[in-house]
């Protein structure tokens, strides 16, 4: 049974975003290998899943879509129940990541393909005003804005300068799964794949820092937004723009959530 369309807007929060094919994939006639899903539960929690299919895996667009949907749906389901206390958010995102892995294994078995043909990264983030939990495997990142400014909640990991991303389909994937939780109140969150990393980060030596002149206009725009569909279209325009694409020809996903709006 298909899941009902999640809410994208509540009384005081909203979420929007998009996955956009990169110029290189267009040129090579490849599909967009990024995927995303996002929504707000009736209890006011925000959930975001993004995945980036590895270029080296020929069915990775299927892998990315499957990983996103099979992680996102159980999270939304859990968020709708009373049992979902703050303290359990870590378990929920971890459990949903396991669901995604299991779904990929089942697909590979059913379709008689190799699991590695579905290789992708996955970031799953659940945010409430005063609680955040993230499960993350591979690159991409999560940046949040709190009263104290911008910070990286989950970084691209060890794979920043190499092409050695450990995907969720890897045999030792669970050793590379990072779980992050945080209890400081957040105002804004951005979850994105590696195609956005050049735009989103500045490098000070080898240390990454969120780039204010990238995030501040986006979060500012999100706060003033009333129509989330328009927000999604604006993200598509941004990710397709020459300014962003001249710095990365990869597929790109950016999902933005804000609290305390309206």
């Amino acid at each position, binding site marked *: 049974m298909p899941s009902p369309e999640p809410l994208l807007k509540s009384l005081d929060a909203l979420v929007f975003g998009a996955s956009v094919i990169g110029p290189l994939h267009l040129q090579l006639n490849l599909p967009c290998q990024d995927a995303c899903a996002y929504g707000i539960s009736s209890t006011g929690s925000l959930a975001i899943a993004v995945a980036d299919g590895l270029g080296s895996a020929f069915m990775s667009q299927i892998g990315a879509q499957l990983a996103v949907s099979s992680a996102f749906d159980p999270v939304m389901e859990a968020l709708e129940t009373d049992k979902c206390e703050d303290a359990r958010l870590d378990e929920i995102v971890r459990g949903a990541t396991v669901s995604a892995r299991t779904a990929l294994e089942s697909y590979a078995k059913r379709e008689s393909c190799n699991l590695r043909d579905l290789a992708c990264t996955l970031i799953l983030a659940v945010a409430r005003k005063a609680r955040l939990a993230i499960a993350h495997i591979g690159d991409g990142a999560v940046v949040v804005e709190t009263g104290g400014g911008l910070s990286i909640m989950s970084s691209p990991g060890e794979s920043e300068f190499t092409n050695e991303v450990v995907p969720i389909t890897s045999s030792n994937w669970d050793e590379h799964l990072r779980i992050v939780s945080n209890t400081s109140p957040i105002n804004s969150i951005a979850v994105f794949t590696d195609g956005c990393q050049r735009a989103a980060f500045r490098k000070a*030596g080898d240390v990454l820092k969120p780039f204010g002149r990238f995030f501040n206009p986006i979060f500012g725009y999100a706060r003033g937004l009333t129509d989330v569909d328009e927000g999604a279209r604006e993200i598509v325009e941004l990710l397709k723009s020459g300014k962003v694409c001249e710095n990365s020809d990869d597929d790109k996903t950016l999902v933005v959530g804000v609290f305390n709006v309206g």
Partner: protein
Amino acid sequence: MGLAEQIEIGNPTQPHCATVLLLDTSGSMDGDKIARLNEALRAFKEETAADELARKRVDLAVLTFGGAVNVAQNFCSIEDFEPTTLSAGGGTPLGEAILKAADMIDQRKQQYKSQGIDYYRPWMFMITDGAPTDMRPGDGIWNDVVKRVREGEATKKFMFFAVAVEPADTDALSQIAPQNRPPVKLIGTKFKEMFQWLSKSQSKVSSSKVGEHVSIENPVAAGWGQISA
């Protein structure tokens, strides 16, 4: 105005200009000289960061040599450069500093290559008011240093600039510096004027195409230097 017009790119694939400042912080720099150098460094940061292209392209590192060779600032963008207040003391290990700077430039270029970043010819900009205390003409380190500088310059690996502050041993510096770019003597303590020139020169490089010849204003004309006779 759409988001694409409002945002800026944090780490654009701009060509980079690696620049290593080699600053003499030996005991003889103490007092007015180090104070003016510190002041000039802060002004250098402000002026260079104000230039849109230089802000994106200059990749700065600072080495000090006073007693020991110290990486005061590893390569960073001009915006991330936080000039610390340098203090003076100890000898002048100039040989070791030059070798270290050449190593840092080599490593940085490797990083650029691995990340697909284009780069301008790096700059090595040395300021000293003394004579090397870690080498003598003709000894092992001396020969290494001269060879590294001359070869680096000849093979266009980097450009080497030496600025002599009174009472520097300009003879020794002339033997190290490449023949096509002899050391320049700083007039008095015109550190500020010198760094203004450096900032302008770096802006000029940053607005050029990679590989293009850039003519740099003569320090004598710029009013801060004299060619040492």
